[in-house]
């Protein structure tokens, strides 16, 4: 396999309830931004990450649609689906297409148009990432599944509602420095704990929002990247890992351990030849505050059971030992499910190029992204580093 670089990144100028932008416009906007950033005039192939445009927008067949609206009809293009890990899975697919030598320049992105349906439609669409026959049938919602993971973590390790709230406080603080964030305001622990309870012990401010948005990256061979990079720092994908776990939470021996994240990270770390201590920052899948706590344990940044203290003690804040979710995370930046994994890589490249402005991690040389589907039924991890 040959080395793969990320030569272009693109996002919509701002995420949120973008009523005047359609599914195709959202994706084309981010993809064209990434192509322009890369300085190329075409790509050879494309992967579009999307969880459920059929349910959110009545539209499948995104490969054809997006190639057409990108102005590249004829382009080989495929939709990739792995629930909320679809964006990360799309980038992983593009990585292997370039690494194998099959293509030189490949675009990978993700998109979700979530606000064309009402709240109940969105709840239903998102629930399809869980076990339809053995979880959703019984009236279990996504917040309730993560709430049950939180109760397990709290019961066994003494994690508190304040610990969860501190993740939201930190990520909103980071997001306040991100111009693209959907909710770039700060919140306090009191505000989180005083917000409406959705599924005990998760409040509405423990949950990521419903978001319209897209993100895209352009990957190419290292040789090609050296021609294109100019004066800019060159970022490579040093490691990639993906893994699955049981789709139903109840099938797992440990109800608050993310086995798919642990496995995906192990693969990515081995490929990169590094470990958790070598990482300068992380973008992780904080769809709910408890998720970030479980993820940093599974990635090996903290010991099992110690994730709850990390945000409270400043370990994962900007300026801390391992800044987590400098973009604001899913919590503040927004969570257009199919786009999230690609957007994490956009933030990683932005940090490694030193272009993150007020939220820049000083001296960032190597970062990790972790994108997760369902309650951890799938995970995709990328290790990124400056060449």
């Amino acid at each position, binding site marked *: 396999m040959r080395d793969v670089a990320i030569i272009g990144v693109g996002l919509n100028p701002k995420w949120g309830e973008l009523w005047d932008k359609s599914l195709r416009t959202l994706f084309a906007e981010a993809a064209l931004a990434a192509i322009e950033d890369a300085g190329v005039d075409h790509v050879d192939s494309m992967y579009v990450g999307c969880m459920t445009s059929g349910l959110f927008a009545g539209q499948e067949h995104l490969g054809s649609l997006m190639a057409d609206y990108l102005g590249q009809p004829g382009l080989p293009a495929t939709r990739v689906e792995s629930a909320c890990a679809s964006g990360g899975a799309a980038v992983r697919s593009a990585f292997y297409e370039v690494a194998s030598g099959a293509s030189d320049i490949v675009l990978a992105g993700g998109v979700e148009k979530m606000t064309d349906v009402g709240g109940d439609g969105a*709840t239903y669409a998102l629930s399809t990432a869980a076990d339809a026959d053995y979880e959703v049938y019984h*009236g*279990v*919602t996504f917040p309730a599944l993560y709430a049950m*993971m939180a*109760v397990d973590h709290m019961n066994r390790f003494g994690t508190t509602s304040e610990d969860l709230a501190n993740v939201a406080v930190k990520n909103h603080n980071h997001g306040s420095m991100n111009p693209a964030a959907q909710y770039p305001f700060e919140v306090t622990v009191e505000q989180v704990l005083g917000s409406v309870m*959705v*599924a005990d012990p998760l409040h509405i401010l423990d949950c990521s929002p419903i978001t319209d948005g897209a993100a895209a990256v352009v990957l190419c061979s290292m040789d090609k990247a050296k021609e294109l990079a100019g004066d800019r720092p060159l970022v490579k994908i040093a490691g990639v890992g993906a893994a699955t776990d049981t789709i139903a939470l*109840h099938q797992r021996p440990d*109800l608050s351990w993310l086995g798919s994240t642990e496995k995906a990270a192990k693969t990515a770390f081995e490929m990169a030849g590094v470990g958790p201590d070598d990482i300068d920052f992380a973008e992780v899948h904080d769809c709910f505050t408890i998720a970030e706590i479980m993820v940093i344990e599974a990635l090996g940044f903290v010991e099992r059971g110690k994730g709850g203290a990390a945000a409270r003690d400043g370990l994962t804040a900007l300026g801390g030992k391992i800044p987590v979710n400098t973009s604001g995370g899913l919590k503040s930046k927004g969570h257009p499910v199919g786009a999230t994994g690609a957007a994490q890589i956009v933030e990683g490249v932005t940090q490694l190029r030193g272009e993150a402005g007020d939220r820049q991690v000083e001296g960032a040389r190597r970062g990790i992204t972790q994108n997760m589907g369902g309650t951890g039924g799938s995970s995709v991890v990328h290790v990124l580093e400056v060449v």
Partner: protein
Amino acid sequence: MPAGYTREIPQRYRLEAGKCKKCGAVHFPQRLACACGSKDTEPYVLPSTGKIATYSVVRVGPSDFMDLVPYVVAVVELDDGTKLTCQVADAAPEEVSVGTPVTLEFRKVNQVGGHGIIKYGYKAVLDRFVE
């Protein structure tokens, strides 16, 4: 009733599961292949008693469950160690905690849509409701 509902009746009404003949793993629902590599499984009926492994209270529910809100959902660990997800019937949130003993009973799960199709299945019931 649509086929998608009726084919799950053995599991939902009678707790019919499968057991791997090679390693003894219990599969609910029954599977064609075990993680141990074996494809040799036999029918097995789950025990109906166990305890709450974890739980939550759904306060914002899907429209088909709106009339039940707030309702308690749980992962129940049965006496043989098998876990499954269901509602805890008629329970006030403060009555449920990790370790609370429950019994699975056959109950109405909910009523779907304007035509009122009634769906049935197992729910966990607290000891004070068990006859």
